[in-house]
């Protein structure tokens, strides 16, 4: 395995604002890397530097083995980039839009035609290829964008907020498409997003960037243990019956560090597994237990924790 995208101490300044600060990023071949961060954290700026669309103030980047600042064309030949809110020529049809991009990539006409037909089929726009892009919905445009980055048969994809502004169904279709493609063709994917749940499911590794600094990088479960120094046990308890006084008894249990009231029960943050104690407490009071569920740290927890700290 070799790194497809690698940066070392990459920095970008806009006058007195440091947009990207000493960023070290590594994306291995064939993996899906989630690039997470709040708005204005420097995700897009980093991506622009990876493509040579803007120059870094200092530091190095290597994409597919080339330096994007000095050999942008070599990088652009190998990397498909889908910007945030990709736009198309509204008057042209989906096919014609793809054809223009194919010609800019110097793909021979016959080959381009074949690829366009196949790709439109693959992204589910087989019947809409001849319609003007003006008539496309947002989700269709986003899918057309995916087809467009694939037309040059890239080694790697860089997708900036591919699910922005899509409904949950449209978003998960896009992400399924990306996951499928990555698996099928061994594509390396770097995607920036704030759709945490989906990213958690599909990414092999994630990096979290806040205010231009990469504050955590790694597999999601590893990140969790790094954030919460000792393992955390979170439980959701829901009971039915006379509950007055139960809350203070739960709080008094050994190992319960925190307690939050939820709709019909409590959320417990504990330092150990307190399920047996909770069970016996509930049965002693003659209440019926609706559920006792263990809740793992989610990416969202990690994300929020970092945001608050930064």
């Amino acid at each position: 395995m070799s790194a497809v995208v690698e940066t070392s101490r990459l920095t970008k300044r806009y006058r007195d604002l440091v947009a990207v600060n000493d960023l070290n990023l590594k994306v291995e071949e064939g993996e899906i890397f989630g690039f997470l961060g709040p708005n204005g954290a420097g995700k897009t700026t980093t991506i622009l530097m990876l493509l040579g669309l803007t120059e870094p103030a200092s530091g190095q980047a290597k994409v597919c083995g080339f330096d994007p600042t000095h050999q942008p064309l070599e990088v652009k030949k190998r990397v498909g980039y889908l910007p945030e809110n990709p736009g198309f020529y509204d008057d042209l049809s989906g096919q014609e839009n793809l054809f223009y991009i194919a010609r800019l990539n110097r793909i021979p006409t016959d080959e381009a035609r074949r690829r366009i037909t196949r790709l439109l089929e693959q992204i589910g726009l087989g019947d809409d290829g001849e319609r003007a892009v003006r008539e496309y919905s947002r989700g269709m445009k986003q899918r057309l964008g995916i087809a467009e980055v694939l037309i040059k048969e890239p080694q790697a994809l860089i997708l900036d907020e591919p699910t922005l502004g899509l409904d949950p169904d449209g978003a998960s279709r896009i992400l399924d498409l990306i996951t499928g493609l990555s698996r099928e063709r061994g594509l390396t994917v770097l995607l920036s997003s704030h759709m945490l749940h989906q990213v958690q499911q599909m990414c092999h590794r994630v990096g979290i960037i806040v205010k231009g600094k990469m504050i955590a990088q790694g597999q999601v479960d590893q990140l969790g243990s790094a954030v919460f120094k000792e393992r955390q046990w979170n439980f959701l308890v829901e009971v039915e019956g006379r509950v007055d006084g139960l809350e203070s008894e739960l709080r008094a249990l050994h190992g319960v560090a925190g307690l939050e009231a939820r709709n019909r029960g409590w959320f417990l943050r504990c330092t150990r597994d307190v399920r047996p104690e909770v069970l016996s407490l509930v049965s002693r009071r003659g209440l019926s237990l609706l559920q006792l569920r263990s809740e793992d740290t989610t990416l969202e927890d990690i994300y929020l924790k970092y945001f608050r700290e930064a």
Partner: protein
Amino acid sequence: MSVVFWKELADHFSSRRFMILLAIIVLTGVWAIYASGQSIRQEAESAPAEFVFLLLLTSQSGGLFSFATFLGLLGPLVGIMLGFDAISGEYARGTLSRVLSQPIYRDSLINGKFIAGLTTVAILWASVLLLVIGLGIVLVGFPPNAEELWRMLIFTVVGILYVGFWLALALLFSLLFQRTVTAALGSLALWLFLTIFAPLIAQLAAALIVPDPSTPEGVVRQVDIANMFSRISPSTLYAETVQIVLNPLARGLGMVLAEQTQGFQLTPLALSQSLLLILPQLTTLIALVAVCFCISYIKFMRTEIRA
């Protein structure tokens, strides 16, 4: 670059904007030529003029403006219409970053766009001129001679250059202002300023420098200074060039006192002599186009492309 060029060219020719421009130019052109043709036919019966075809282009006896003036007025509009959304439009549609993330050199986009615009103008101007020649032959009854053809050809080339200047300017504005509307209004404002206000300001400036034009020398000096100033404007350069190219009898551009021409026999100048007269104007016009485009080029190469 050729990919961008062909796409832009196809876009221009299929756009509604181009159809409107074509209709306006053809209609006004035909009308102007027809009007001057009618009046020339009447005059020609008494005293047949030399260079009838050139007269057809410059005579304003029939209509409001002559054909040459019309093209001078519409030219900037054509240039601005073709160029004002070249970059800002791509920005607004969000296509710029997509196109520039393809393996093409960045300058091929702006070069392709500029050359496509210029080609569109050239095709438009050439076809209008051919139309005019055809119409002229019908109206006058005989074809133009070689000298007239050469002068008309130069007139066309100068016209394309002039429109090219406005195209380059609109392109620059479309880069400077990311909003399409601002770019269009900005170029239109500059056009109004250079065409209408610049000559007025030039006269004011000349009046300040030579406050008392009581002697003939004073008058000449004042007019000369006003001319110098107004030559900052490409509209003046174009107007002067056309005036010399289309009128072989024109001797110069400055003011000529009646005493100076006494005893002169007014014979037409050879083409080369006319060209010599307008060489400064012509080179300045070319330089202006080049400078305008170069600024856009450098600016475009250095901007950061955000989606």
